[in-house]
């Protein structure tokens, strides 16, 4: 057991008070997730319970979005470019869940984010004039922590942005100065929560002009805890058999993104531990982490080693708890990053490095007697007719669309990036406001 939850990677940003408040938040997310499970639920948190023989389970997945690799298996250039494009809606057309008022309802307030949905994001800093790469920064820091930091210590927030991104960062850049709404709660009711004056996690220094923490709407710690909770429920197929396959599980339980490397892997491993008779949790300090980068394919010029260029800025590599890392040439090297070869060709995109990154969470479990909760399926997967390698969740009683045996591949000329603003005019009520940190 632990007395409190540490900050991600035990980073020492926070004083005792804010750190205790962070612990309380994490504890609260766990308790909320546990409360959503039956009494026999197999999710525990390390403050309330623990067994001395609990074992560690490292769960790894690739940092580059699987959906782009599935979509463009041979067109490597296109998937690199697409993954680095700042969007206002992801590949499936979903915007970030921020809204503005329109009449008595709400319409999306389209904000920028990275369509990098494997709990690892990166930004390629380029010179304003030259366009040359100056550094490539990776993060796995969850947005809730930065929200908390903004609420706890505004001066520190600004200092970190200035230290890590740009001295040009101004306070007003980081906070909303307009009415922007998300889903909130008051007295048990869903109410619109106005963020005007609050921290803007999708501010320009964390999107177009830099990177501080995760931005994709699915990349959040709260969502990760909820995924872990949902994955502890064993699932039965229509034939009554326990489902063991990771892909079948996520389609059945709908606990995450079906086209990712991460969610099926995390959920599958947790469910496997529960099937094996364990209670499970996420290890303290609870977080999402960069586990490693494979430096072997990277060949800098002039006798510089790849290790000289990869610097862990926040967190630590030895425990596989990297929060922020930066790839840059040593100061005064006299070379450009475009002189670095990755996999036999010049470095031109951060995505080339992202393909070498492994992201992890640190699971934990111990043997627990009794029957784990079991449920039937809530959804199923259908193939997307336009891209059959990709799936989409569907109602159990829905009919999956037909798939043509031969798929026409769009040519260069008529290709349109699918991230669109198509939902911009859809008006919804306050009750329909989605959770800002959804998993799918």
């Amino acid at each position, binding site marked *: 057991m632990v007395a409190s939850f540490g900050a991600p990677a035990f980073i020492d940003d926070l004083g005792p008070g804010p750190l205790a408040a962070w612990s309380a938040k994490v504890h609260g997310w766990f308790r909320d997730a546990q409360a959503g499970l039956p009494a026999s639920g197999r999710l525990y948190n390390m403050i309330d319970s623990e067994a001395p*023989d609990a*074992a*560690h*389970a*490292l*769960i*790894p*997945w*690739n940092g580059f979005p*699987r959906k782009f690799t*599935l979509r463009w*298996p*041979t067109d*490597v*250039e296109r998937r690199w470019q697409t993954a680095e494009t700042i969007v206002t809606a992801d590949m499936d057309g979903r915007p970030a869940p921020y809204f503005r008022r329109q009449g008595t309802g709400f319409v999306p307030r389209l904000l920028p984010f990275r369509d990098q949905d494997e709990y690892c994001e990166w930004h390629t800093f380029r010179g304003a004039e030259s366009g040359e790469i100056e550094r490539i920064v990776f993060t796995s820091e969850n947005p809730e922590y930065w929200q908390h930091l903004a609420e706890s210590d505004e001066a520190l927030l600004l200092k970190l942005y200035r230290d890590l991104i740009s001295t040009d960062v101004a306070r007003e850049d980081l906070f909303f100065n307009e009415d922007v709404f998300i889903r909130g709660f008051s007295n048990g009711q869903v109410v619109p929560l106005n963020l005007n004056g609050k921290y803007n996690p999708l501010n320009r220094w964390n999107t177009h002009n830099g990177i501080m923490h995760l931005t994709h709407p699915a990349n959040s710690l709260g969502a990760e805890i909820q995924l872990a909770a949902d994955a502890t429920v064993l699932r039965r*197929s229509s034939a009554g058999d326990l489902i*063991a*396959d*990771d*892909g*079948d599980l*996520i389609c059945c339980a709908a606990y995450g993104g*079906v086209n*990712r*490397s991460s969610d*099926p*892997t995390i959920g*599958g*491993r947790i469910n*496997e531990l529960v099937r*094996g008779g364990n209670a499970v949790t996420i290890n303290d300090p609870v977080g999402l982490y960069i*586990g*490693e980068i*494979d430096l*072997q*394919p990277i*060949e800098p010029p002039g006798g510089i080693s790849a290790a000289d260029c990869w610097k862990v800025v926040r967190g630590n590599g030895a425990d*596989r708890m990297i929060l922020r890392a930066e790839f840059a040439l040593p100061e005064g090297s006299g070379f450009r990053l475009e002189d670095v070869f990755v*996999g*036999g*060709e010049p470095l031109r995109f951060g995505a080339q490095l992202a393909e070498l990154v*492994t992201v*992890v969470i640190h699971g934990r479990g111990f043997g627990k007697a009794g029957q784990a909760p079991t449920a039937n399926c809530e959804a199923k*997967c259908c*193939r997307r007719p336009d891209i*059959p*390698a990709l*799936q989409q969740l569907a109602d159990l009683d829905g009919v999956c669309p037909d*798939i*043509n*045996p*031969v*798929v*026409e*591949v769009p040519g260069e000329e008529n290709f349109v990036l699918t991230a669109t603003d198509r939902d911009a005019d859809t008006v919804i009520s306050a009750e329909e406001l989605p959770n800002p940190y959804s998993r799918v």
Partner: protein
Amino acid sequence: MPEPVLRANNIQANVAPGLRMPHQQIIALGGELAAVRRLVVQLTPLVTYCAEAFAYHEERLEIAKQTATFGRESFTAITSGQGRRWLNFAIGARPLADAGIAAPAQADRSFALGLPARSTTLGDPKQAGTPGHKSGWVVGAPDAPPDLLLILGSDRADTLLDFVDNVLLAATTAGLQLLYSETGTRLENDEEHFGFRDGISQPGVRGTIGDDGAFPLTRRKLAPSTDNTSPEFSAPGEVLVWPGEFIFGYPMQDPNHFRRPLPESAVDPFLVDGSFLVFRRLRQHVGAFRQAVRDLLAQLTAFGEFNDVNEDWLQARLVGRWPSGAPVQVFKDADPRDPPGSLDRFNNFAFRNAVEQVTTVEGETIPGAASDSDGLLCPFAAHIRKVNPRDARTNFGPATQTQKLRLLRRGIPYGAPAKNGDDDDAADRGLLFISYQRSIRGQFELLTQDWMNSPINPEGSTGHDVLVGQVRLGGGGRTGVFARQSAGPFRKIMTERDWIEPTGGGYFFAPSRQAINIFLAEIT
């Protein structure tokens, strides 16, 4: 969906079902496009295609079954007269580009870049002068890229020698430079030089042969199962995979379903029925391996719970199989040596899930195997688990995705086998590794770079592929992780020795009969 009828007179035989000849010669040639074309014109009538090899091997295996002869001996039983002269070839990126044929380079970026450029990605040394660095390769070094790779095969050694002479004469007459020529020979019991039977596990390629699709390319030793969600097996442990994973122009494996095909996108005519070929000449330092095993054993036995294990036990865990090929997951304590029945006994296991006993269509009962999700029987770092995690999830997603990282392995050993006690001999011996796949980048390279050489992929805290991995020295060496119980303790052992030395290779495209004609048609 019915399995596709393969265009068996259009696909080169080494792609499927494999030349499999006990005597093979690998020849690399370089030269101008015109010279390449001159030789290809002469080689065209000699190329062996899938249909011929399929018919031959079906007959050979039938005789082998009746006479209980396996491996090399099965070729002797069917050999008559002069012996067979089989030939396959593949083309490098340069002559294709010179001929204005862009499709292979567009289909695989790594093919376009070439093996020397991708060498460090595979874990090869970065420093020139280091053993294994590309600058010192005996074939495929950056300054001498092969334009053609020939694979000659025969059931008789003397026939092969004569065949090689004829082909080399034709090559020099055409104006090509001989860059490399080496003989590969299947060893006793199909062992590789460390003494382990190789090639037991291959994907079962779906597809049929014959006008009416009467014959499955891969023998079906098991009756079809009705469960539509789990993998389908052609033989115990042999998962059926859609042929588009290896040959262009056919349905691929759906990344989200074990049995469902993925519709094929429109394919350039030059690619249809062709396949990418990876060639790696891997020198094996047998003495260094044996010494390293002794060192690793000393590290492991220092942990009390492992003080009862010996060199044989540890070697088998590094491989995942005993020298006979028997999997440690099934045969935990000792090598049974000969399989107690067919070789299928050595392949009916998975890692995450228990496998049930099955009975083949010929009536042989093959016992099942327990699951090993914690790596207690077959360590996560064992070579066979690293390169083929079977039913396991990986860092790339669910187990259905794992089926898309399979290769058709066609390698053959070279050099004389080491004798016991020859630990320090300097003989050059090793493996002429050859694999066919749809994507060099998405199959061969991914499992090499991202699985074998990683301490945490594909299954978690696994350690490296200590046997074959190429993690560079100075990076903490290659580690293997062992445990007796699920909750640990997890014991890590480490070596900085290298006993596999890359000494050459290249990336090529094995064209179909039709594509060869396209290549030659460009002459006019």
